[in-house]
């Protein structure tokens, strides 16, 4: 075997080998576009390497020949050779194919990229629904984590800690700042899935003292809630908040959400409506499907209940 061919084989193997190494199992995935893409890469590497080698070998072995034309420019002559047969026949064949394809092949196939997309989505949705019809709790959390990393981590961080207060820390139901903010300004984020606001401090009576909630009481109850419903603000909570949020803070259906812990329903409402608060604004998500939302709910709930 010629040395050049060997070099060619080594080059192609290295290039394609390194590509496959990077892609890992991805190559085997059931994805025709990816496979065609890789087939294209293989074709580029192999064809151009070996065609070049063919001509380089001609440089090494052949001799120039043919009938020279009469003309000559600045000393450059020109042979009257015929074009290489393989080249000419490929050109002709491709041209005929192209004319056929544009006039007959393509119109008959009546391809539509949106049509193909719709099929792809329908297919995907069908298998997705079938595969996840009866997910167990652990799988839900696992799926939720995977969706979270793609959709939520850019704001909440990979460990869901809220990146230094830039978004909510989901490892904990509420920070003192957030509670304080809700008490002072009220809250109107559709957390119950409906337009059911919480009043601001001018609407919050402490039944124990018979007066509007005071600054000291706000601080105390904020600490109490953010400490996981424990500590010294218990009496304020019982007097002011328990009426709506329940004595354990776990909320009451249709009245107020849980502020003691996360639950999938709360998460799903936040995803549907977004949330604006002390830290910033969380966008709503309308491109997630039901299963994904449930999974996110399970995942977020699991974070603070470890």
């Amino acid at each position, binding site marked *: 075997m010629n040395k050049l061919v060997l070099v060619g084989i080594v080059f192609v193997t290295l290039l394609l080998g390194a590509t496959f190494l990077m892609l890992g199992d991805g190559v085997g995935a059931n994805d025709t576009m990816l496979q065609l893409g890789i087939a294209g890469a293989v074709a580029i590497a192999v064809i151009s390497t070996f065609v070049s080698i063919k001509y380089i070998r001609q440089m090494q072995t052949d001799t120039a020949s043919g009938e020279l034309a009469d003309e000559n420019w600045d000393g450059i002559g020109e042979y009257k050779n015929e074009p290489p047969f393989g080249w000419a026949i490929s050109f002709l064949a491709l041209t005929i194919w192209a004319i056929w394809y544009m006039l007959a092949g393509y119109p008959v196939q009546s391809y539509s990229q949106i049509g193909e997309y719709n099929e792809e989505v329908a297919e995907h949705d069908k298998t997705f629904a079938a595969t996840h019809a009866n997910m167990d709790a652990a799988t839900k959390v696992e799926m939720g984590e995977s969706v979270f990393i793609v959709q939520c981590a850019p*704001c909440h961080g990979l460990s869901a800690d809220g990146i230094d207060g830039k978004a909510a820390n989901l490892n904990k139901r509420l920070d003192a700042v957030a509670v304080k903010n809700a008490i002072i300004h009220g809250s109107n984020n559709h957390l119950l899935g409906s337009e059911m606001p919480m009043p601001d401090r001018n609407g919050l009576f402490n039944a124990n003292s018979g007066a509007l909630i005071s600054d000291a009481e706000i601080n105390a109850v904020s600490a109490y809630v953010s400490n996981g419903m424990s500590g010294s603000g218990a009496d304020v909570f019982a007097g002011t908040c328990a009426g709506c949020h329940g004595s354990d803070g776990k909320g009451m259906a249709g009245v107020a959400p849980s502020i003691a812990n996360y639950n999938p329903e709360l998460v799903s409402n936040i995803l549907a409506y977004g949330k604006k608060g002390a830290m*910033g604004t969380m966008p709503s998500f309308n491109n997630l499907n039901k299963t994904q939302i449930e999974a996110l709910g399970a995942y977020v709930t699991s974070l603070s209940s470890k």
Partner: protein
Amino acid sequence: MFHWLEKHPFFFAVGVFVVFSWAGLIMILPTFTKASQPLVGTVPYTTLELAGRHIYVANNCSGCHSQLIRPFKNETDRYGDYAKSGEFAYDRPFLWGSKRTGPDLMRVGNYRTTDWHENHMKDPAGIVPGSIMPAYRWMFTKLADLDTAYAEQLTVQAAFAVPYNKPLPAKDGGTNMVKLADTLEGAKASALAEARTVAADMKDQDVKDLIAQGEVPEIVALIAYLNRLK
């Protein structure tokens, strides 16, 4: 025949030109009027948004970001609904880009918010560890050019009949209207009002100070533009 052409360069050039240009016409002309009809819900840019768009162009964000969601499941999962021609009817120039060093931004307004952009533009890697996007800190103090944005609005209204001050059909069946002031002062006043609502969600002190003085820093205009990408 070809040899004759090679002795008569003028006709040679004519031949080249003919062969070259007719394909160009076929490529461009057929869909020209159809592709430019706005989709329901697509509205022209406000002064502030347009100023933001100019900043996007000046900093060549398109060098790293596309604004074109292709009809593939993985793209619609990541970025939202695929792109439709009519959505770009007011985009001069189009900003599809040809390279995704960073993610697509065509609908970034759906899943990022003002405060996030504020943090991110100041220090991308601080928000998204591993990010290679440059920081844009100067935008927090440099002022946006509202005059040029207004000049462009007047130009497109006059030259291309872009429908400012006209009720336009909205997606929910109602109508939308984008106002365009008669005077530069008016345009700047409404841009400032819009800037205030954006800046209300921001924390940067320079930005707050400038807005209080009646000035609009670049970052506010840029975020107004990013928020409108939906």
